[in-house]
C-alpha cells in the first residue's frame, strides 16, 4: 500500500518536472517530445492507479492516454511542424529565465493554496494535489508566454495532462474515462483547427488580419 503512494508520487513528480522543462524549451520539436514523455508517464500513472484502486475505467483512461495523447497527437503535431516548417525556435513573450522564475512562483502558489486543506485517508494526498495544480498552472503559463500557436496548444495539452493526473487520483470518481474522452474531443478540435484555419505563425497574425478587415466594416 505504501508502495502505491510512493510510486504515484514519483510519477507525479516526473510529470511536474517535465511540465517545468516544457517551460524552458524554445524549439517546438523538443516541446512535442517532452509532451509525449509526459503523456507516457501519465498513462503509466493511470495504469498504476487502476491497479491500486482496482478500477477498470482507470485502465481505460490509461489506454486512451497512451493511444491518443502519447502517440497520435504528437504525430499530428509533428506533421503540422513539418507542413508549416516551423523548425526554427519560436519567439517567447518574455525571457525564458523570467518565465521559469514565474513557474517556480506558481508552484509555490499551488503549495500555499493546498496546504491548509485537511485530506483525511484518501489515496490522493496534498502533494499529489499540489503537483496536479502546479502542472495545470505551468501549462497555462506556457500558453501565455509563447507567441506561437502550436506552442500554446502544447501548453494547453500539458494543462489537460495535469487535469487527468488529478482525475485519476480521485478516489473512485465516476466518469473519469468520460472526462478524458471529452477533453480529448476538445484537443482534437484544437489540432484540427490548426489544420483547418492554417495558422502560420500565431493567433496574433490572424487577429490582425481580422482586425483590419473588421475595422473597415466598423465594429
Amino acid at each position, binding site marked *: 500500500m505504501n508502495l502505491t503512494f510512493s510510486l504515484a508520487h514519483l510519477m507525479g513528480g516526473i510529470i511536474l518536472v517535465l511540465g517545468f522543462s516544457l517551460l524552458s524549451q524554445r524549439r517546438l520539436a523538443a516541446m512535442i517530445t517532452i509532451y509525449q514523455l509526459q503523456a507516457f508517464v501519465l498513462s503509466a500513472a493511470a495504469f498504476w492507479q487502476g491497479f491500486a484502486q482496482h478500477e477498470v475505467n482507470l485502465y481505460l483512461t490509461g489506454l486512451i492516454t497512451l493511444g491518443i495523447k502519447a502517440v497520435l497527437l504528437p504525430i499530428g503535431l509533428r506533421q503540422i511542424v513539418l507542413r508549416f516548417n516551423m523548425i526554427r525556435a519560436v519567439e517567447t513573450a518574455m525571457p525564458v529565465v523570467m518565465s521559469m522564475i514565474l513557474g517556480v512562483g*506558481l508552484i509555490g502558489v499551488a503549495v500555499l493554496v493546498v496546504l491548509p486543506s485537511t485530506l483525511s485517508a484518501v489515496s490522493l494526498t496534498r502533494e499529489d494535489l499540489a503537483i496536479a495544480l502546479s502542472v495545470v498552472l505551468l501549462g497555462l503559463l506556457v500558453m501565455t508566454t509563447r507567441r506561437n500557436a502550436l506552442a500554446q496548444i502544447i501548453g494547453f495539452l500539458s494543462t489537460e495532462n495535469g487535469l487527468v493526473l488529478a482525475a485519476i487520483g480521485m478516489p473512485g470518481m465516476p466518469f473519469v474515462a468520460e472526462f478524458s474522452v471529452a477533453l480529448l474531443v476538445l484537443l482534437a478540435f484544437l489540432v484540427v483547427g490548426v489544420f483547418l484555419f492554417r495558422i502560420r505563425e500565431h*493567433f496574433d497574425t490572424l487577429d490582425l488580419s481580422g482586425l483590419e478587415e473588421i475595422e473597415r466594416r466598423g465594429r
Partner: protein
Amino acid sequence: MTPSFALYVGLPGQGMHLHLDALSLLFLGILLPQVVAGAMAGMRKSVTFWVFALGMGLALAAADAFTLIFGFELMSAASWLLVLRGDQKPATLYVGTAIFSAACLIPAVFLPAGPLAFLLIVLGAGAKAGLAPLHFWLPRAHPAPPAGVSALMSGGMVKVALYVIIRYAFVVLAPAAQPWWGGVLVAAGAASVLIGALRAMLEGELKTVLACSTVEHVGLITVGLGIALRGKAMDDATMAGLGLQAALLYAVAHGLYKPLLFIGAGEVKHGVGTTALDWLGGLVRGMPKLGLLMLAGAAGMSAMPLGPGFAPEFLLLHAAIAAAGSGGIIARIGFTALLAVLGVGAALALGAAVRLFGIGFLGRPRTLQAAAAEEARRGPLAGMALLGALCVPVALLPGLVLNLLTPVILELAPQAQTPPLAYAPLSLAVLAGLVAGAGWLALRRYGVRGTREVAAWNGGFGKAPPWLPFGDPAAQPSATGFAEPIGRAIGRGLLAPGGADPAEAFLLAPLQRLHTRGVRLAERIRRATIRQRLAFVFAALVVFLLALGLGEGS
C-alpha cells in the same frame, strides 16, 4: 382623513402602496391645473404625456419607497422620451441626471435616518429639481420638448423633486434632523437663485430664459425650505412657519405662472417660427391676448406686487430676516449675505422679465415673421387663461391660500407659527384704485383728450429701406445688447471664463474627461490579442489563488 390604497402590481410578492395625506394632496393640487393646461396646449393625444403625468402622480401618492422611486423614474423616463423627440442633444444629459437621481435616492431611502441619507436625498432630488450645482441639464432639456410638456416639466416635475426633499427632510428623516441640514438647503438654494437669475437675464432664447428662471425659483423655494428646516431643528416657531409658508406658497404660484409662460412661448414658436428674442419684437400688436397673458406671467416671474409672485417673496424675505435674528454669528452673517443675494436675484429676475416682455413683445418687429404673427390658437390660449385665472386668487388673496396651506405646514412642522400675512394686496389695490379714480377725473376735467399717432424719432438713424416697413431692426435695442452690460458687470465674477455656466465648466467637463479616460482604457483592453486575453485570465486566476492562500494562511 387620509385614504390609503394597495395596488396588486409592483415588486414580486409585495405590490405597491399609495397613501394620500395633506402634503400629497397639496402637490397633486399644484399638478392638476398644469396637466389640464398642458393637455389643452396640444398634448392631449400623446400617450407619453399621460404616462409622464401618471408617473408624477404615483410619486406624489406613494406610500412605500419602491412606488415613490418607480413613479419618479417613470416620470423621468417618459419626459426623456418627449425630450428626445424634441431634441436629441440634451436628451442624454437629461436621462443621465435622471438615473443619477435614482442612484442617489434608492440607497438613501434604505439608509438609516441620518446625515448621509439626507445628503443623498438632496443630491438625488436636487439633481432632478435643478438645484445648483446640478442644474446644468435644466436650461438645455426643458426647452427641448413641445410647449405643453415643457410647461409640465418646469411647473410640475421640479415640484415632484421638491416634494421628495420635503417628504424626507421634514417627515421621514425628521427625528435625526439638525440645524446644519437647513444650512445645506439654503446654500444650494442661494447658489441656484444667483446663477438662475443671472442666466435668465443673459440667455437669448425665450424658453431657455424661462428654464433658467425656473432654476432661480427652485432655488427660492429651497431657501424657504432650508430656513424652515433650520427653524424646526432649532425649535424656532417663527422661522419654521415663515419658511414653510414662503416655500409652499412659492410652489403654488410658480406652478401656475411658469407653465403659462411656457405654453405662451410655444405659441410664439408656433406663430413666429422661432423663440430667439432677437428675432421677435412687437408681438403684442399681432397677438394681444397672448401678450397680456404673458405680461401677467412675467409679473409673477419677476415677483411684482399685485402679481402672484410677490406674496411668497415677501414671506421669504421675512423668513430670512427672522433667520438672521438667531443662531451663531457665522450663520447670521451668512443670512445677511443671503439677503443680499435674494435682493440681487430679485432685481435680476425683474430685469429678465422686463427684457423678455419688452424685447419680445414690445418695440418694433425684428423680422417679417414677427410682424406677420397672428393670434395664438384657441386651445393653448384657453389653457393659459385657466392658469391665469387661477393666478388671481394667489395674487390678490394670498391670505386665504395660506389658510389652505396651514394643515400641510402643521403636518410638516407641528410647532410652526403661521401669523397672518402683513402684505394685503387687496387694500393696496383699493388705494391704487382711489388714486387712479382721482387722477382720471382730474385729467378728464383739465386735460386735452385723445392721442395722435406720429412717426417715432428713430434716434437719428437714416430712413429704413422700403423692404423694412417696420424700420431697421439693427437700429433698436436687442436682447443681447440689453443683457451685455449686466453680463459684463456681474457675470464676470460669477460665470466661468467664456461666460459658461460654472457648473458645466467645473463639474461636467472634468467628469467627461474622466469618462473619456476610462473609455480609452477599455478600448486598450478590447484590442488585446488572444494571448493577452489569456494572460488576463491567467493573471486574475493567480491573483485570486494568492488571495485565497494568504486569506487562509492568515
